[in-house]
Structure formats: C-alpha cells, structure tokens
C-alpha cells in the first residue's frame, strides 16, 4: 500500500526524463551537419547523465526510452529496413554511456558533494564527458556502419563528431541539471546564477551565432544557384532554338513540294541532322486533300522504296494514309485534308510511321495548322513517342513549305498554297543533356513545363542522399530554387530548377560548423571554470566560516575571563567592605557574634565576643573552637556538626564572661554560611545573654498588655488590697489608679458579693484559678456594674501566693443585646429558632411552635436535626458543621427545603440563617417561612395566565380566520357578480333594438343591484382589513390630510368642508386615519337632506391623543339609533334613496378601536350630528419599537 506513491513518483520521474531526452535530443539533431549522422552538440547526453546522477541510476529506463523514441523518429526516414533494431541498439549505447558516466563520477569524483575542489570538478567533467562518451559513439557508429546506414569511409569522421557532440552536451548540460536539482541543494542552488546562467547564456549565444553564420552561408549558396540557373536556362533555350532554326532551314531549302525527292531528303537529313542526336526523327509531310488521296496513295505505292529492310519495303508497298502506325486507314478529315508521313528519317526506326496521318492527332494537327496559318515554324505541346523499346518525351517542330517557295501574304493564300510541312521530332532529354551536361553532377534538379500543356515535358531531380532528420533546422530554411520562362515556336516553356541537399552540402564552407564547435567548447569551458570558481568560493567561505567561529570562541573566552576577573575583584572589594560594615554593626551589639570556617577556626569575632573571652581579637582569629572552648567543646560538638550539615541550630548554653567573671546563660544560634552551590563553608555563631533580656522583655510586654487591655485588670495582694489598676479599670469603676491602689478590692462589692469573693480568694490561695463568673460591682458613684471576672493566682519566686490578678469585663451591653435578641426572636412573625454551635435549640418562638407542633419547652435542648425530615438529617448535620466553620448570614431559598412537623409531615420552607456571636459563644438564628400557601398561589397564577394565553391565541387565530373569510368571501363573491354585470350589459347592448323598454329598465335595475352588491363587498373587505397595520407610522399633517380629503371626495355642489381652529401634526399611521375621516365626511354629505350643507372638522390636542369632531348640519341621528348606526350593514334610509352599504360607520368604529381610540356620536334633536373620535399619538420610539 505504501509503495504506490513511490512507484508513481518513480514512473513520473522516468516519464519526465523521457520527455527531456526527446526534446533536447531533437534540438541537438537539428544542429547536426547533414549528411553526417552525429551532431556537433548533443544536450540529451548531458541531461541523461545529470538526471541519473541526481535521481539515481534506477531512472535508466527513461534514458533508454527517450533515446529509442528519438532514434526511431529519425531512422525510418533513411529507409532502413531494421530501423527499430538499430534504434534499440543505439538507445542501449546511450543508456550504458549515462550509467557508466554516473558510476564513474560517483566512484572517483564523489557525488553527491558540492564540488569545491578543482580536481574534483576536473575529474567529474572528464569522466562524465570525454571518457564515458566513448561508449555511445562507439556503439552507435558501429551499429550504423554494420547496418550500412553509414558508408565505411564516413565512420571515423562520424565517430569523432558523435563523441565530440556527446562530450560537449555533457560538459554543457550536466552542470545545468546539477544546478537545478543537485545535492547538496544549498551549494548547487547558489550555482544557478554563477554556473547555470553563464553556461546557458553561453550555449544560447553559441547557437545563435551558429545560426547566423549558417544563414549567411546559405544566402551565399542561394545566390550562386540563381546565377547558375540563369545560365542553364540560357543554354537550354539556345539548344531548342537551334533545332527550330535547322528545321526551318530545311523547310526553306526543301522549297516547293516535289522538288525534293526522297533521296534528296535522306541526304539532307544525313547531312544536317544526324549529328544532332536531340532530333529523334525528321519527316516530310505533304498536304493531301481528300480528293487527291487515292492518287497520292497510288503514286506513293508506285514510287516504292528500295531498301534492305523488308519492313520498310512492305510499308512502302502498302502505303496508305493511316490514323495510327500500321493501323487502319484514316477516314476523311473535317476539312478534307490529310498530312501523312511520306519521307521519314531514320526510316529504319519508324517504318510503320509511313502513311501516319498527322491530322489524326489533334495536338499534332493543331501544330501543323498553326504553322500553316502563320507561315512560321511552330512547336507542338509535349508529346510522347516510342524510342527503341521505350518511350520518350519531346515536341514536334513543324515548319511549313508553300508551293513556289514563297510564303503567301494572305491567310487564304497560305492555306491554299501549303504543300506540306517539315517535321522534326525533338527529344527533350537529349536536349537537356546536350545543353546542360553537368546538371546531374552538380546536383541540380530541373523540371520543364509547357505552360499550355498537360504533362510535364521533363522532370529530373538528382537522387536525394540518405537524409535523416539531421540538418532539419537548416532544411527548413529551404533548398535554393529558381524559375525561368521562355517563348519558342509559339509555346511558352517554364523551367524550374531546384538544388539538392548534395548541391548545398558540396558548396557550404566549414565555418558554421567551426563556429558551433568553438561555441560549445567555450560553453563547456565556461561551465568548468565557473564550477571551479564557485567551488573555490564555497571552500573559501567554509574556511572563512571556521575562522570566524574560532575567532568568536577566543573572544568569548577572553570576555568570560575578564568578566571573571572583574567579578572576583568586585567580590573581594565587596567582601572587604562588608567585613568593615559587619564589624561596625556587630561591635555595637551586646551579643556574641563570631564566624568560623569549616575547619572550626575563628575568622571573625565582634567586640563583645572579644571582651567576654578576655583574649585579644587578633589572637582569637585563627584559633580553633576546640582550643578556645577547651572541654566545653564536647557539649557544642553535636550543634557544630548539625550546622556544618547545613541546619540552623538554636540552643541554650552557658558562657563564661571573663569581663564580669560570671557564667551567663546564653541563647546561642548557629547559622550555616553557604556558598552559591549550597556548600557550607562556615557558620555564624551568635549568643545572646538571656538572663537580663528575658526579664526586661516580659515586664515590658506585660505592662503594655495590661495598659492597653480593654478589660479591667486589677492586681491584688494576698490580703485583697489593690496593687495594680489599669486604665480600663479606671474607666469601668470610675476610680483613678491612685485612688484605687492600696484600697481593699471589697470596696467594689456589696456585702453579699464580698462573702462570695472570700471563697474565691480561698481558692486563689490554694493556687487555683477562678474561672469566669458574673457579678454585680459598684462604681465609685455607687451605680451597679454588670461584670464578668476571672482570677488567677500570682506566685512569687519563692513559690508562695503573693496575690491575684483579676480580669474584669463590663457585660452590661452584652446583657442588653441578649435580651434584645431574645425579644426579637420571640416577636418575629416567622418561625424562628436559636441554636448553639452544636445544633442544640436554645430558643424558639410561638410561630416555630405552630410550625413544628412542639411546645416551647420541648424545643429547648432539642437537636436541630430533629426538625429536619429523616432523609436529610445526616446531610443537614454535615452542612451545619461546614457552615459553622465559615458562618455568613444567608438566605436559603428556592431549594427543596423541608421542615418536619412533630407529626411527621413535611412542610416546604425558606430559611434565613444568621450567626450571632455572644460572649458565651456563637449562636445561630434561623428564621423559617412556610411557603406552602405561596406555592399554591403561584401555581394557580401560572395556570390562569397559561389559560389566558391560550384564549388569546385562540382569539387571534379566529380573528385571522374571520379576516381571511371576509376577504375570500368578498373576493369570490365579486367574480360571479361581475360576470352578471358583464352579461347583462352585453344583453343590453346586443338586444338594444329587440328588448321591450320594460325589460331594458329591468336590466338597468339588475345592474344597479349588482353594483350595490359590489360596493357592499368592497366595504366588507375594507371592514375586514380595518385594524390591520398598513405601512409605517409617520408624521401626519392633518391640514394636509383634510386637503387631500377634499380632493378625494369633491364635495357635491352647495356643500362645504370646513376646518375649525388649528389642525395639528401628529405621529400616526396615516392610512387608517384617512379611512376614518373619509367615511365620516362622505357619510355627512351622503345623508344630508338639504341642497346646501356644511361639514366642519375640528381637532383638540389631548396630550396622549387627539380628539376629532366631524360635525354636519344634516338631519341628525335620533338618540335611539346612536348605538345601531355603528353596526354592520346598518342604514337608516332606503338603499334606493341613498346608495350605501351601511358599512361606513362600522369600518370607522373598527378602525378607531383597533388603534386604541373610541368613537361616538352626539346629535341634538332637530338638526346636525357630531361624530367624535379619539386617535392616539405615537411617540417615535414606540412606533419604531413596536
């Protein structure tokens, strides 16, 4: 499976190689020199070798196929019988050559490689070029020689050319291929410009120069040929013309018919003509009128002929005028004349021509008659005649002979006086070989045409040499050709000369080939040199790269070194500086500070250390720890080991202070000194005198605590007298410290409390702590103070109880808060519980009792989980534990929270939970709301609104259905209606003269009812559509609207439409508003009962809407009708009186109401009615948003 891409890739490569080989090979063959088989440069060899080098030797089938195809294209033209075999052998040679070349290069020169060194390049070019190219040239030439394609004497030269061509091809094209696809790609790609381009350019230049030189050479040859052809034409004309002259001379010499006898004729011929081998025969042809034929034939027979040739004797004995040699006697000619051969030389060649009638063949007769009529020697068109056993082509030269030797002046005379004609038969091949003996040798072809004749008179082209496709390019330029034309004996001849390839070859100089060879050599040299140069360049670059690299390394090391030096000096400097600073710092510290290295030798000590040791610093430095501390070292040893292991060590020890002469408790700490790499190189030893320091510290801290405490802290002695009194105590009891100290503590207490206090003191004296207790004390002003107090015994150094410390807190505020909390819980309108941190209920209110069904006392001490349904108890306990860790006030809503009633029923609740911190600990207050009723209400509400929605949807749908119904009904009803209207009108028209008047009136009535029905349906339609939104809301100018109304309605004569007051502009849907006004106004006009009337429109702006009055002075509407008139199909007057559907006001009502307005009518008894409707003003946002 995975092989197929590899295979197809391989096949593609081979195919491409075949193509490249074919194209380049064809190009190379075009440049070859005919008739040589090999070419001066053969790029295909280079491409084959290059591709095998780059793509691997396995691509060899591409070379073989390419070569095979190339050869099989070239060879058949040579007419070789075994062309395919030859091609295969040559192809094999080419393939072997490419394989050998690539092997040699890989083996000796090395590939793939960038070819940097001169010897590699030289070796590669040598091995790929001249050396391996021996293979193909030797194979190819041997095969061609063996097959006879090449003559033996051409073998050497062809081998040489072949070899040179292949070598040059390799030298030129192999580098090109490598530049395109060679490995390593980087170097070879760069060579595209340095090597590929120059080589390609040089190659193109060489080919161009070659073609130019070659063209000039051919030009020269063509010109030579033209000159030569002109001379040939001249010679030919002279030759024919001479024959004509001789014939003419014979004719005139022959004189009058009869004056020359047969023997004279024979003599004449032998004297004049025998030497002219171009004249095949000479004859005397007398004119024999039909009436003299018999006499003529008799005379001829009588004359006879003595000859040693029996055929001749027989011919003369049986002499008769015939249409063909030895054939039947000729019939009478049209003009009653015969032109039989009478004398004929050489008679021996044509004995049976005697008596042959020239007039029997039209072309001969034409020539005879033309000669007769013109009185001139004429030539016939080309004819073909027998020569020996073969045939030959030629013309007859016909010369007229008149009686009396004079050419009569008139045509009639010439026709009358013609005695006969002298005919010479001109053999054209002889004419050509006589006139142009060197034609064939020089390789010039000739064709002679009689312009009026049908067959070519003469056609000769020198045999082509075997011409393979070689030299094609130059053959395209064309062989030299020349045309000439001359008139003779009444005929026009055209001569067509053409040079053969041989002609061209023998005349062309060696210059073009030399130019090509030189060009290719230069190209190859350029390739080699450029390869060499670029190789050197790569090498130089590589060396330079190495140099740069090593230079960079050196400079990097130098920099590192200098940095290190600098770093080190900086470190030393820093060390010095830090040591000085360390000394300055440590000398002022009353602690022991020393530094020891890992050999446990002192490296640094501060002034305190020096003082305590009593030995000068200089002496100590360098000493070992053991030397300095003597037997004390053994105690230190474990700590030293630990610090050297990297641990920070703290321990207490004793140190002898020589300056004071006492042993001192010292808190020592050893801190390891690590280097960057973590290695311990020494340690700092520090010791602090703990005796003094601790005491001072404790006292100070205690004082501060006492001072800043918010609780009152009071110290008493064993007798209960106050010894200490902090500011908080001052604030609590309103005694100042000076007032209180020395007083008995009992002064703060009532008599009863004092007794209790005595028991506490007894406990103190027994060294017991008195835990927190609540008490009521008195302030200095006698007011009671709620306090919580705790007491601790104070033990002196001897272990006796020296007094007690009291911590007292004012808890009045807390008490109030607690009372408030309890009150709040009890008064809460929800069930509320208070629990401690363990979940024990401490308090529950009345609502909680109701909710859970427990009594108040049942609650106290109850575990809160008991109030949770069994299923959730354990989870609740866990949750409660988690909540106690991070308490926050929160509401628990929406969950499936359930409380458990005493009777086990579960109640849905929402719970609010808040932690409250109290002195005795944190409590949690939970407020529970029973959501049972609320849920029910919500559910009912949802159901109701869903039902409402359904009803709404139903309503909307039925409205829509109604609209559709009204629309469809009115539309479908209208169609038949119009048909009725049409039909009745046609009847009316068609039967106008026939129908009685009554029927005509009925028809009119019928049509008026139809129209009424139509209007009714229209209005119904409009009603149905009323309230459907049409168009977009816009700014409607009512003045404009009323103006339009007036135009639309065209108030009837005597009626006016007036506007009272100003008309505003409002934002509204225009169309429905117009419908409303239109209906109201047109109604007013329609129902008016007088000749003159007036309708008034007035508008009042009411903020969110406008109020429009349309008032008329018509008959008015009785109050009992006020409701009815707005119904559908309601009208108060007969239809025949007032045309109306009764829908107008219904439309108005529906339209107004669907736009959120209302409409009504006011009518006063007597006259006039006022319709008032309201129309909502839209705000832009509502209009757009909707």
């Amino acid at each position: 499976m995975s092989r197929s891409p590899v295979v197809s890739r391989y096949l593609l490569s081979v195919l491409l190689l075949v193509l490249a080989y074919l194209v380049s090979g064809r190009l190379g063959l075009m440049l070859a020199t005919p008739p040589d088989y090999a070419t001066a440069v053969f790029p295909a060899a280079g491409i084959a070798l290059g591709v095998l080098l780059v793509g691997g030797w396995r691509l060899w089938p591409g070379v073989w196929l390419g070569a095979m195809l190339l050869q099989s294209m070239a060879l058949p033209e040579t007419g070789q019988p075994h062309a395919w075999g030859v091609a295969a052998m040559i192809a094999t040679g080419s393939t072997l050559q490419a394989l050998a070349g690539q092997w040699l290069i890989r083996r000796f020169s090395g590939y793939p490689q960038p070819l940097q060194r001169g010897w590699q390049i030289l070796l590669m070019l040598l091995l790929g070029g001249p050396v391996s190219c021996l293979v193909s040239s030797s194979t190819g030439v041997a095969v061609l020689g063996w097959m006879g394609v090449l003559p033996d004497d051409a073998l050497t030269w062809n081998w040489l050319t072949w070899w040179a061509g292949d070598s040059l091809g390799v030298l030129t094209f192999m580098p090109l291929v490598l530049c395109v696809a060679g490995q390593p790609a980087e170097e070879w790609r760069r060579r595209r410009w340095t090597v590929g381009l120059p080589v390609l350019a040089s190659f193109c230049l060489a080919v161009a120069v070659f073609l130019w030189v070659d063209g000039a050479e051919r030009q020269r040859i063509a010109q030579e040929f033209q000159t030569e052809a002109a001379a040939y034409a001249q010679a030919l004309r002279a030759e024919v013309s001479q024959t004509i002259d001789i014939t003419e001379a014979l004719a005139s010499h022959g004189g009058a018919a009869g004056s020359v006898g047969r023997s004279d004729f024979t003599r004449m011929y032998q004297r004049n003509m025998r030497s002219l081998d171009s004249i095949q025969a000479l004859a005397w042809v007398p004119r024999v009128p039909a009436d003299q034929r018999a006499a003529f034939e008799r005379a001829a027979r009588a004359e006879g002929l003595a000859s040693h040739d029996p055929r001749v004797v027989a011919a003369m004995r049986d002499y008769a005028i015939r249409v063909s040699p030895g054939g039947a006697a000729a019939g009478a000619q049209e003009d009653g004349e015969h032109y039989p051969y009478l004398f004929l030389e050489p008679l021996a060649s044509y004995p049976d021509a005697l008596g042959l009638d020239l007039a029997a063949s039209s072309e001969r007769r034409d020539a005879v008659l033309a000669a007769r009529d013109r009185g001139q020697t004429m030539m016939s068109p080309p004819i073909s005649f027998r020569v020996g056993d073969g045939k030959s082509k030629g013309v007859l030269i016909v010369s007229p002979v008149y009686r009396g030797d004079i050419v009569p002046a008139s045509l009639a005379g010439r026709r009358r006086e013609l005695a006969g004609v002298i005919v010479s038969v001109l053999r054209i091949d002889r004419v050509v070989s006589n006139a142009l003996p060197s034609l064939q040798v020089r390789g010039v072809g000739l064709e002679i045409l009689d312009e009026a004749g049908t067959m070519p008179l003469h056609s000769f082209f020198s045999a082509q040499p075997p011409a393979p496709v070689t030299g094609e390019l130059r053959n395209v330029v064309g062989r030299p050709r020349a045309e000439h034309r001359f008139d003779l004996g009444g005929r026009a001849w055209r001569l067509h000369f053409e040079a053969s390839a041989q002609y061209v070859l023998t005349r062309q100089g060696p210059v073009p080939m030399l130019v090509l060879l030189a060009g290719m050599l230069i190209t190859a040299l350029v390739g080699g040199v450029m390869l060499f140069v670029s190789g050197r360049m790569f090498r130089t670059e590589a060396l330079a790269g190495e140099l740069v690299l090593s230079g960079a390394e050196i400079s990097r090391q130098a920099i590192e070194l200098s940095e290190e030096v600098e770093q080190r000096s900086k470190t030393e400097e820093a060390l010095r500086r830090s040591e000085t600073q360390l000394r300055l710092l440590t000398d002022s510290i009353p602690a022991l500070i020393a530094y020891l290295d890992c050999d446990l030798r002192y490296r640094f000590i501060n002034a305190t250390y020096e003082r305590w040791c009593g030995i000068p610093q200089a002496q100590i430095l360098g000493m070992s720890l053991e030397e300095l501390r003597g037997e004390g070292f053994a105690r230190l040893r474990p700590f030293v080991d630990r610090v050297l292991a990297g641990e920070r060590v703290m321990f207490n020890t004793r140190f002898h202070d020589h300056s004071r002469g006492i042993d001192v408790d010292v808190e020592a700490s050893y801190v390891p000194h690590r280097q960057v790499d973590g290695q311990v190189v020494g340690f700092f030893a520090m010791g602090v005198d703990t005796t003094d320091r601790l005491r001072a510290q404790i006292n100070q801290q205690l004082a501060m605590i006492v001072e800043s405490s918010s609780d009152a802290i009071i110290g008493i002695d064993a007798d209960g007298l106050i010894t200490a009194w902090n500011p908080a105590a001052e604030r609590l009891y309103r005694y100042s410290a000076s007032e209180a100290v020395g007083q008995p503590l009992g002064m703060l207490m009532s008599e009863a409390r004092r007794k209790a206090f005595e028991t506490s003191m007894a406990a103190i004296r027994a060294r017991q702590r008195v835990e927190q207790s609540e008490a009521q004390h008195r302030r200095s002003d006698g007011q009671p103070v709620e306090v919580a107090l705790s007491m601790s015994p104070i033990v002196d150094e001897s272990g006796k109880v020296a007094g007690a410390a009291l911590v007292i807190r004012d808890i009045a505020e807390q008490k109030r808060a607690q009372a408030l909390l309890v009150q709040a819980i009890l008064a809460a309108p929800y069930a509320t519980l208070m629990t401690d941190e363990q979940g024990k209920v401490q308090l529950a209110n009345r609502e909680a009792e109701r909710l859970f069904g427990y009594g108040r006392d049942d609650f106290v001490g109850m575990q809160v989980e008991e109030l949770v349904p069994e299923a959730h108890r354990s989870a609740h306990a866990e949750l409660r534990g988690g909540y106690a860790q991070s308490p926050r006030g929160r509401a628990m809503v929406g969950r499936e929270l359930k409380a458990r009633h005493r009777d086990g029923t579960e109640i849905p609740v929402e719970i609010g939970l808040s932690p409250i911190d109290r002195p005795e600990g944190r409590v949690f207050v939970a407020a529970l709301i029973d959501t049972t009723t609320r849920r029910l209400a919500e559910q009912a509400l949802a159901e109701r609104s869903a039902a409402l929605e359904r009803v709404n949807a139903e309503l909307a749908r039925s409205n829509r259905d109604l609209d559709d119904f009204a629309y469809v009904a009115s539309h479908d009803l209208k169609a038949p209606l119009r048909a009725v209207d049409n039909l009745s009108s046609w009847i009316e028209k068609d039967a106008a003269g026939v129908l009685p008047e009554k029927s005509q009136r009925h028809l009119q009535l019928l049509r008026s009812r139809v129209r009424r029905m139509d209007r009714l349906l229209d209005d119904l339609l409009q009603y149905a559509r009323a309230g459907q939104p049409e168009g977009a809301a816009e700014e409607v100018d009512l003045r404009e609207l009323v103006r339009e109304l007036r135009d639309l309605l065209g108030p009837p004569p005597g009626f006016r439409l007036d506007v009272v007051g100003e008309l505003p502009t409002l934002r509204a849907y225009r169309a429905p508003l117009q419908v409303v006004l239109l209906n109201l106004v047109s109604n007013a006009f329609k129902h008016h009962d007088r000749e003159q009337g007036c309708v008034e429109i007035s508008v009042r702006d009411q903020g969110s809407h406008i109020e429009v009055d349309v008032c008329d002075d018509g008959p008015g509407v009785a109050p009992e009708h006020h409701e009815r008139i707005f119904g559908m199909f309601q009208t108060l007057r007969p239809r025949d009186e007032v045309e109306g559907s009764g829908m107008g006001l219904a439309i108005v009502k529906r339209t107004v109401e669907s736009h959120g307005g209302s409409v009504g009518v006011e009518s006063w008894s007597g006259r006039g009615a006022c319709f008032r409707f309201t129309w909502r003003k839209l705000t832009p946002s509502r209009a757009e948003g909707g």
Partner: protein
Amino acid sequence: MHASRRPALHLLLVEDDEVDREAVERAVEEAAQSGLQDGFGCRIHHARDGDEALALLRGGMQASLPHPCLILLDMKLPRMGGLAFLASLRADPALADSVVFVLTTSEKPEDRAGAYRSHVAGYISKRRVSEAPGALAGLLLAYWRLVDLP
C-alpha cells in the same frame, strides 16, 4: 404622418372564466369596429390555466402563436395559478422576456406585489375594466402600436 403598419396583435388570454374571456374579446372587437384602430388586426388565443398557457407558449401551436405576443393573465386560476405561471415563465430562458399584463379580480396586495416582482407590464383590475370596457382594448392596442417588443 403615415404610421407604418404593424403585424397583427397576438393576445394570449389566460383565463378560466368564460364571461371574462368574452369580455376581453368583445372589448377588442368593439375597438376594432370603432375604426379608431386603423389597419389593426388582433388574434386572441385562449388558455384556461397556467399549465395550458405554458404548453401553448412552449410550442404546442407555435405556428399560430408567434413569440412576441401579449399575455393577459388572471391570477386566480385552476391548477397552476397566476403567480406560479409567472415564476415558470421568468425561469424559462426562451420565454423570460414575455410581456405580461395581469387582468384579475384579485385586489390582494400580495398578488399585486408578487406580480410586479415578476416584472409584469401592468396589473389591471377587472373591476376597473368592467367600468370602462373600451379602455383595456385601447391600452393593449396602443401598447402594441407604440412599444417595441423584445
């Protein structure tokens, strides 16, 4: 001025209502008889619905119905209705350039808008036509006279 004669007007009437067909025929006939339409000839072809009209146009009777003809189309038709017919007509490259007048009872805005979107030459309400029967013939004949058809 001498008006050059035009070939006879071929009218394809797509209409299922016999009375409406006759109405158009009568109107054209009357117009021709009135003598106002000098040298005018008109041939009316019928189709009862969209399918039939398409068949006719696509060559059922090509000889008698030359291509540049005026089509008078009703909207409400059995089988293939007016809008569907227009859609098929415009989709057919050979017929897409047909000139169509809609002649219908339908005054539905959707029908009107749909027809004009399918490039009809005019949307004519039958109601208007029955009010003035001569006007339609006048319009068609004048249209035929003045307008160069594709």
